[in-house]
């Protein structure tokens, strides 16, 4: 039977988990009201349970103590009994659908921020600063150690009283327990540091206290890393020793294993591997831990599709697979496997929009699935067919917004025509996928291609839709998602011309799409510090160009999220790309066969020049508004979107008004340049009521 390995139930502690797929703990940034699991939180996990996920471990980095700040990341607060009824809501919602739910509990130690809320003094075994959060901390005292051990036990009690199925103690990601474990961070000479047993002591006392509080019939697991990847940190052999040591107590019901430590930017990027990583890059580490423990082992990290999950489980490397981002992209993943709809699974592409938002303290959202975590607002994962009349919907532009608009309108049962000027749909995603290590982002388009074909959307590819074409179709609704053009003409001094022969600069699109030959000596001016500039630099360097990427901002790549700029840096430094900050592009001129870029330091006004053979400018996008203004006056709603309805996830009032002619809406970059998620979100919330 296909995917049989996934659908073998397994016992963890006293629980029977219905299949081998886990949504592992991640920080959701949804716990409001002082860290309570409120409506949004509950609905987010209910959707996964409804979609068939076997086990959800919620609340990555949920705190047990009041001096482990939770508000920065809206994480769950188990330091108060106030959480118990909220947990009951959460447990009921998941249990109703046959799922199980546990929560990760932890004290973050030094891995946090102190400069807000309670202005907590952060704690760590030896008071050593943590690089990622730039956080200083005090050396923890014996009394505080015992207080926190007690806090762990109380937190576990609250989880149990709230009806959750278990707790996972976090000894991963350099939280307090593994801060004690790691000789890189723990320099103590008392009974809490030094020897192996001493470094293990804090975690062991936590485990004992938790067990003593919740008893044997409550599931308690331990999440650990497989190798800290620091020469002075815990190696894989160390971690095997630690795992075996805790396993020998018989009090740990399962082990979760994550490859890599994460107290530096570079190691952090390993923890949630983005699209530049191969599939399951750290499975060997989890398998190594499985060799030495007697209890089930869970491993998550870049496991995204059911074939991969089956292969890992069939190989016996681990007992359960974490498919956490896979569930963020598609919480109905398991159901779709069971329904033999594997091709309909919206697969995670590793864009890491979710986790990169989290590291900024923003709510976790999926780049491609705008319904995720918005279930509480009434945004659906499954679009029900309209009960109203069938409409003729014309969508212009096959980028993310247009693809989603076409999909949603077709799911509603309407007659949908999608125009795309290029030979294939995808829009800017197609361009983005041309860069080295970024090809997987095309997975977003791949899903839409399959869905639009399944839904019989009439796709007019390679067809530029003008005013007359659209009017001929006698549409009821016209959705414009025509995107925009690179914004190269902001400063005349840059020497941009629409005539490629005359233009002194080219765009990152031109480079990535292969419209221009890569130069040999290239200067990239990147005013945004986002993906496009980094990708163009990587692409050109990959083709053998000598590349300098210059920005007037903090640093090239500064606006790329925390799990992705490190993988760009790994690649760019490797290829000797020069990254220069604080310089604006003042002017470009031609000198013989060469181009000269005049750069000006933002802070001193001092100018310097670069003589190169190609200048690439990344300055964002200007909306393509031509078609919109051509159609606006004739449309029934004058192209206006009712924002109150849109933001409330309500139908646009004009949809229920009778009248001749068409309604006109525009989405995505052709309104104002934002990002993929924004375009898809707008399309979903607008079109779901068509």
């Amino acid at each position, binding site marked *: 039977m296909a995917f049989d390995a996934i659908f073998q*139930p397994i016992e963890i502690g006293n629980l*029977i988990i*219905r299949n081998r797929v886990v949504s592992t703990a991640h920080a959701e940034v949804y716990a409001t009201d002082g860290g309570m699991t409120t409506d949004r939180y509950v609905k987010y996990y209910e959707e996964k349970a409804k979609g*068939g996920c076997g086990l959800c471990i919620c609340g990555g980095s949920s705190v047990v103590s009041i001096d482990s700040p939770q508000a920065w990341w809206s994480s769950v607060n188990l330091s108060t009994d106030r959480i118990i009824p909220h947990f009951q809501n959460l447990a009921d919602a998941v249990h*109703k*659908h*046959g799922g199980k739910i546990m929560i990760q509990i932890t004290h973050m130690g030094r891995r946090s921020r102190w400069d807000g809320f309670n202005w907590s003094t952060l704690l760590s075994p030896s008071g050593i600063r943590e690089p990622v959060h730039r956080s200083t901390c005090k050396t923890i005292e014996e009394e505080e150690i015992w207080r926190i051990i007690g806090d762990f036990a109380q937190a576990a009690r609250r989880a149990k009283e709230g009806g959750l199925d278990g707790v996972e103690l976090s000894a991963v990601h350099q939280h307090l327990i593994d801060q004690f474990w790691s000789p890189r961070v723990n320099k103590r000479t008392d009974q809490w540091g030094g020897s192996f047993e001493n470094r293990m002591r804090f975690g062991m006392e936590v485990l004992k206290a938790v067990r003593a509080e919740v008893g044997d019939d409550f599931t308690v697991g331990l999440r650990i890393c497989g190798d800290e990847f620091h020469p002075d940190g815990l190696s894989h052999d160390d971690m095997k020793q630690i795992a075996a040591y805790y396993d020998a107590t018989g009090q740990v019901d399962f082990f979760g294993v994550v490859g890599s430590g994460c107290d530096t930017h570079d190691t952090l990027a390993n923890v949630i591997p983005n699209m530049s990583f191969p599939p399951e890059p750290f499975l060997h580490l989890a398998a190594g831990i499985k060799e030495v423990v007697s209890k089930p082992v869970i491993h998550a990290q870049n496991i995204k599709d059911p074939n991969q999950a089956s292969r890992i489980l069939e190989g016996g490397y681990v007992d359960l697979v974490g498919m956490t981002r896979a569930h963020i992209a598609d919480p109905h993943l398991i159901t779709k496997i*069971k*329904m033999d709809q594997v091709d309909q699974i919206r697969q995670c592409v590793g864009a890491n929009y979710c986790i990169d938002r989290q590291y900024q303290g923003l709510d976790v959202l999926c780049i491609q699935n705008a319904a995720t975590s918005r279930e509480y607002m009434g945004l659906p994962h499954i679009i029900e067919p309209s009960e109203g009349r069938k409409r003729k919907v014309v969508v212009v532009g096959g980028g993310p917004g247009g693809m989603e608009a076409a999909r949603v309108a077709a799911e509603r049962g309407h007659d949908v025509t999608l125009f795309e000027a290029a030979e294939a749909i995808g829009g800017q995603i197609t361009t983005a996928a041309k860069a080295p290590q970024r090809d997987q982002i095309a997975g977003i388009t791949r899903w839409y291609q399959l869905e639009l074909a399944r839904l019989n959307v009439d796709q007019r590819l390679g067809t530029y839709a003008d005013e007359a074409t659209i009017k001929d179709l006698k549409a009821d609704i016209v959705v414009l998602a025509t995107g925009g053009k690179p914004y190269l003409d902001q400063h005349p001094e840059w020497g941009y011309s629409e005539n490629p022969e005359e233009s002194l600069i080219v765009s990152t699109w031109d480079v990535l799409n292969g419209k221009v030959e890569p130069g040999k000596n290239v200067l990239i001016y990147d005013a945004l510090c986002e993906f496009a500039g980094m990708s163009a630099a990587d692409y050109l360097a990959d083709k053998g160009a000598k590349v300098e990427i210059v920005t007037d901002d903090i640093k090239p790549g500064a606006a790329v999220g925390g799990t992705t700029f490190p993988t760009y840096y790994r690649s760019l430094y490797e290829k000797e790309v020069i990254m220069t900050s604080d310089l604006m592009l003042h002017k470009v001129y031609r000198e013989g066969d060469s181009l000269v870029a005049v750069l000006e330091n933002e802070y001193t006004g001092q100018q310097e020049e670069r003589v190169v053979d190609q200048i690439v400018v990344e300055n964002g996008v200007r909306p393509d508004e031509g078609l919109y203004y051509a159609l606006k006056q004739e449309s029934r709603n004058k192209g206006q979107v009712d924002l109150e309805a849109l933001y409330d996830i309500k139908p646009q009032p004009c949809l229920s008004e009778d009248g001749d002619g068409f309604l006109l809406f525009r989405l995505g970059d052709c309104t104002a340049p934002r990002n993929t998620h924004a375009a898809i979100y707008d399309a979903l919330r607008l079109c779901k009521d068509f």
Partner: protein
Amino acid sequence: MLDILLPILIFAALGLAAIGVVRRVRLWRQGRPSPVPLVKGLASVPRRYLVDLHHVVARDKVMSNTHVATAGGFVAAAVLMVLVHGLGLAEGVLGWGLLAASATMFVGSCFVARRRRNPPSRLSKGPWMRLPKSLMAFSLSVFAITLPAVGLLPDNFFEGSVSWVLALALSAVLVWGLGEMVFGMAWGGPMKHAFAGALHLAFHRRAERFSTRGGEGKRSTGLKALNLDDQDATLGVEKPSDFTWNQLLGFDACVQCGRCEAMCPAFAAGQPLNPKKLIQDMVVGMAGGSDANYAGSPYPGQPVGEHQGSPQGPIVAREGKALVDAETLWSCTTCRACVEECPMMIEHVDAIVDMRRFLTLEHGNTPNKGAEVLDNLIATDNPGGFAPDARMHWAADLELPLMADRGEAEVLLWLGDGAYDMRNQRTLRSLVKVLRAADVDFAVLGNEERDSGDVARRLGDEATFQSLAKRNIATLSKYRFQRIVTCDPHSFHVLGNEYGELGGPGMPAQYEVSHHSTYIAELFDAGRLHVKPWKGGGVTFHDPCYLGRYNGEYEAPRSVLKALGIELKEMERSGFRSRCCGGGGGAPITDIPGERRIPDMRMGDVGETGAELVAVGCPQCTAMLEGVVDATAEVRDIAELVASALTEAPEAFAGAAQQSSNRPQAVEVA
């Protein structure tokens, strides 16, 4: 002169017929013994003929009336002819009666003749084409010779030189008629059906099929158990003489009307099976000879004349050709459409399974995946070879009550091997949701359940079937329940109709078994289910063979669909004429190639109704119909439709629902 000639002719014909009868009976008696009540059987013929058989024949009104006239006319005419012309009792009413009978028969013959002018392909040609002429010859000549007897012609009409010639000519026609109707009846002509058919009705091995004064006949569809302990007997049927004598008699009753052929899904799919030809081959086999004289549609893809057999010769050759090829036997889906249609009450499926039993049990020759499936059943108690302890994996999150824990429950939910199939698991989960919504007290056997044995039995592996059945019976005997409910019509049939014979001392195997549609219909009737109105498109219903033809349940699924607010768009072939999905009898396992796929044809039937959804009530049907490429309709089990329509109980029921809130709640289907 006729006064002298007629009795001679009549009694000569009768005498020759008697010899034929003895010869024919000898042929039948080559078969294995099968005790029957002789006198009671013979006495029941008129009723069985006039009531039960007539019910089947009357599905074709014109032919039914034709047959009433022709056959009724003939029987009366034959008897009266013996009295009037044989014994010379022409006085009064007898002669008039003979006139009327032969006239009636003549009218009937005209309709038979009309039928034969452009016969549908299902009808055999050959000697059958001359039958209307023979009927006319008999009826006309008898009518004519009787005219003087009643005084409509002068007594001496057939005397004198001209009339002599006329009398001679009439006599010749009468000889023809008598030859066909009397002599031919016993010596193997088309009229054999009347003689063999009457005795077949008398000594049918499923007497319970026929009505009695006490009431309607019962459905009798369970296969009969094979005695596995008889060391001397061949297991199953190797050669024609291995059939019981009354099975051989039954084959002889065939009228080659081809109603079976017209309904057979394998024939329609171009697989090498034609039930009519199969029966005729058995007739050839019991007498010895070749099939060269067969004048009907052949097995698709197989020319007539290449096969031959004898009573003691093998039916299926190990190598080369004998009477029939193994592929013919393995093409059958056991859908019983042939049996249901047969006006002579012939039991084709019994015969096919008897022959399969030999191939599987004695030769180990079950084709394609057959052997693997049987090995799986032996090793794992399920046809897929899945781990026996994985049977409940699909329900790991449902916390289903186990009989082992409970000991008793009102309903024992029999899961079937669909428990291992991801598609059917959706049906099962839906059914659980429905049962919970209605607050039904149910439990499952869990890992104690084994395959019902249906597939093993249909593939001829009676030993594995009986082993599974006996162990299931032993398990069931440990628990108390009012009835078994299952969403698998095959399990339903086997548990309800075939286990009964296999119960042991202190272990009766008589269960009340209900298909889930029956049970759900009852829940609706009792007001225990609340649903929102149907908002989908057009729906049709596909009757599973093992629910409909095997168990006569045509109404319950329709009543459930009606309760959901669905107005069915019925297929032309629905109810007792439903076309098989192709999934029964192990046919997907033996997988005999044809020109088309049976499920594709069935989906074509669905398509003709314009329905967007076809409701089903069988895991096999679901699998087969969902396997159709470019299907025009979605496939949903009735349980799924009900589960997705469930709503909260209205106010009045809220209290009851709350009281039972400590039980596990319904879980999503997928």
